[in-house]
């Protein structure tokens, strides 16, 4: 009998699943957003501002932004793990990616609740 030794950090399945769930959330938001934009045409400043003044739009957009950065983190980390071989450089780029992601999210919240 061969006993298989499982190694690794065990974050693979969780991240794989998170990437797919966030993808579905973004897909639904995107389709709704396109229809909303077509409905409210022509878009003037007042129409645009009123759209983002509504609570549901802010919360939906925040859910989209959180999904996006989570999804992007898994994707960018996969790209870095595949192509960047020196450990130090890869770690540096991953930390940089996380900082960018945190900034994107903070900025999104600031834009939505100004």
């Amino acid at each position, binding site marked *: 009998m061969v006993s298989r030794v499982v190694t690794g950090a065990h974050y693979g399945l969780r991240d794989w699943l998170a990437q797919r769930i966030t993808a579905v959330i973004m*897909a639904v938001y995107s389709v709704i957003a396109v229809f909303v934009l077509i409905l409210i045409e022509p878009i003037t*400043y007042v129409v645009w501002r009123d759209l983002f003044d509504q609570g549901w739009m802010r919360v939906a957009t925040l859910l989209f932004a959180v999904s996006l950065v989570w999804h992007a983190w898994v994707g960018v980390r996969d790209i870095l793990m595949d192509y960047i071989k020196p450990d130090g450089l890869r770690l540096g780029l991953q930390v940089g990616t996380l900082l960018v992601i945190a900034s994107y999210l903070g900025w999104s919240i600031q*834009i939505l609740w100004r």
Partner: protein
Amino acid sequence: MSEAAVKTAARRPRPKYLSLQALLFEIRLPVTGWISILHRISGALLFVSMVWLLWMLDRSLSSEAAFEKIKHYAGLWPVKLSLLVLIWAYCHHFCAGIRYLFLDLDKGIDLATARLTSWIALGVSFALTAALGWKLW
């Protein structure tokens, strides 16, 4: 196994590592491979462009004057062209992503179907880009 046999096994050529260079210049990609690498490229492009898109959203919601400025800015041809590229990236990532969700559910994994859905994803993403681009301008 003798020590010599172990050493021979260690020297045996290993499967080729899929470097970016190999993907771009050495391996002729089938359409399913193109969908895959374009999914990566479009995702990376959208991630790095997010700072620009957020800046435009920020400006457009800050005041009426800033909104008009951004509207004018978005009408300049280099900006329009860049936005069109990003719209394509989003549409491609969207269509190829839906295809991957079905593949994850074991739907359409035989070669003929996988190739057909790849062409459909490519075609639909270009059609959506054209439609959204036309709608915007």
